[in-house]
């Protein structure tokens, strides 16, 4: 993204930029391990074995998102959510609280719903990541999305993608969810405009039909 910036071409610059050099790092942290030695992806000796060390500068990363491979160079501190939104322009997942409190950033990792704001991008590599963008197939809304539309389950719509993904995984697990399944399954998403009534109707419609 900043390829036009000669300052940032070199990971070494970037390390300075984050304000910690490896020497500083070891001084501050008082870690008693052998000092690393390899250039490129560095490594430390730990319990007699080499363990690779990533960062603090940018690290090349690779992701499988909605079945497609995406690559980027990111610092370890970048979250999956920010990588999706700022690197790959998959902006369906929203950043609202950034603290695991609201559900707007819900995506599936290995088919389980998680908060993308609270997963580091570096950990999400080589796992199947599914975002709301993948639900629509060949220009057609998923039945769940259709039910949201029919039951007017979005107003401003900012929370909607998160809810859609949460509902999707709920229905995958319980095709005919009981009220108790819904109570638990949708507890991790908040809406400010007050679309819960529409979402409830959408879920009622789907749990009858099975989605």
């Amino acid at each position, binding site marked *: 993204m900043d390829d036009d910036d000669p300052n940032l071409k070199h990971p070494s610059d970037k390390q300075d930029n*984050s*304000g*910690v050099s490896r020497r500083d790092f070891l001084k501050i942290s008082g*870690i008693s391990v052998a000092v690393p030695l390899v250039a490129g992806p560095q490594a430390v000796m730990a319990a007699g074995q080499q363990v690779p060390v990533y960062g603090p500068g940018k690290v090349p990363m690779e992701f499988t998102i909605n079945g497609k491979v995406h690559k980027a160079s990111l610092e*370890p501190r970048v979250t999956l959510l920010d990588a999706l939104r700022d690197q790959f322009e998959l902006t369906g997942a929203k950043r609202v609280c950034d603290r695991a409190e609201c559900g707007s950033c819900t995506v599936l990792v290995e088919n389980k719903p998680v*908060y993308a704001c*609270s*997963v580091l991008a570096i950990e999400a590599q080589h796992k199947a990541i599914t975002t709301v963008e993948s639900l629509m197939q060949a220009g057609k809304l998923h039945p769940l999305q259709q039910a949201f539309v029919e039951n007017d389950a979005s107003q401003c719509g900012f929370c909607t993608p998160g809810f859609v993904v949460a509902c999707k*995984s709920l229905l995958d697990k319980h095709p005919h969810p009981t009220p108790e399944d819904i109570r638990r399954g949708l507890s991790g998403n908040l809406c400010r405009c007050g679309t819960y009534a529409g979402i409830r109707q959408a879920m009622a419609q789907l749990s009858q039909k099975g989605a």
Partner: protein
Amino acid sequence: MRPFEYVSPTTKAQAVSLLGASWGGTEILAGGTDLLALMKDDIVSPKRLVNIKNIRDLRGISSSPQGLRMGALTTLADLADDAGIKKNYPALAEAAIEAASPQIRNMATLAGNLCQRPRCWYFRNGFGLLPKDETGNELVADGDNRYHAILGNEGPAKFVSPSTIVPVLIAYEAKIRLEGPKGKRELPLEKFFVIPKSENEREHDLGPNEIVTEVVVPPVPNAKIAHYEIRQKDVFDWPLAVAAVALKMQGSNVESARIVMGYVAPVPWMSPEAEQALTAQPLDQETAQKAAEAAVKDAKPLSHNEYKVQLARVAVKRAILKAASGGAA
């Protein structure tokens, strides 16, 4: 978040040696549901993050006649879904499924849950675990302490222990296993939680380079066990009081009891007074009420949390009555 370097060891020994010998330099990353928020808020700022999720030995749930073993990386979703736990330790499964939200339960690990940091809003706003402003004023006593401790709050620590799973684990007499540079150790879970007296202590009996490796629970005792939470919002809200009880019965009388309260003190709070009040008594409304009174007898509410005394009392009473009527199942 400040920059950090990231390592992902595959063995416990590697992990231990990658951790620093003093707090501040390194942190263990498990599910990240708590740690990343702490780092974003600059409450902890490790220079190195040790991701433990690739350590196979820390995974898995197994039941045997010796009891239940849960690896540190067991997620709350695993706890809630495991058939053996649902059958033999239903109050634990129930506590797990009531915790947080599905998204968090999919990520949050058992060890992370035990080691999660307090939700005290002064702590989370950067005023320290024993919150003070720059001039040294203690913030909680004079501030908004509506969610703070009513027991064990005589010292500077006024936060409440945040896990809703821990009280029921203690009721089940769980033990925690740790591994560090000096080897392995095992503690009754209740001993893992300590009330810090100074800002450079933490609220766990955990060394900076120690890892929680597993939690073990003895075979299901012949006891009635239940867990009760009071939350204002139906779900996904921090509780105002939690109680877990284990009642060993002899005929229709209680032979011995374990009463653990959550959200009332800086540590999970065991109440020998309440246990005493139940011992050798029949299990009815009246004893439950007496035990509940005994549990909060020594409560010293702060300026804004008197109501929590009542809520703790109700939680204990309801947990006892729930256990009496068959508990979670």
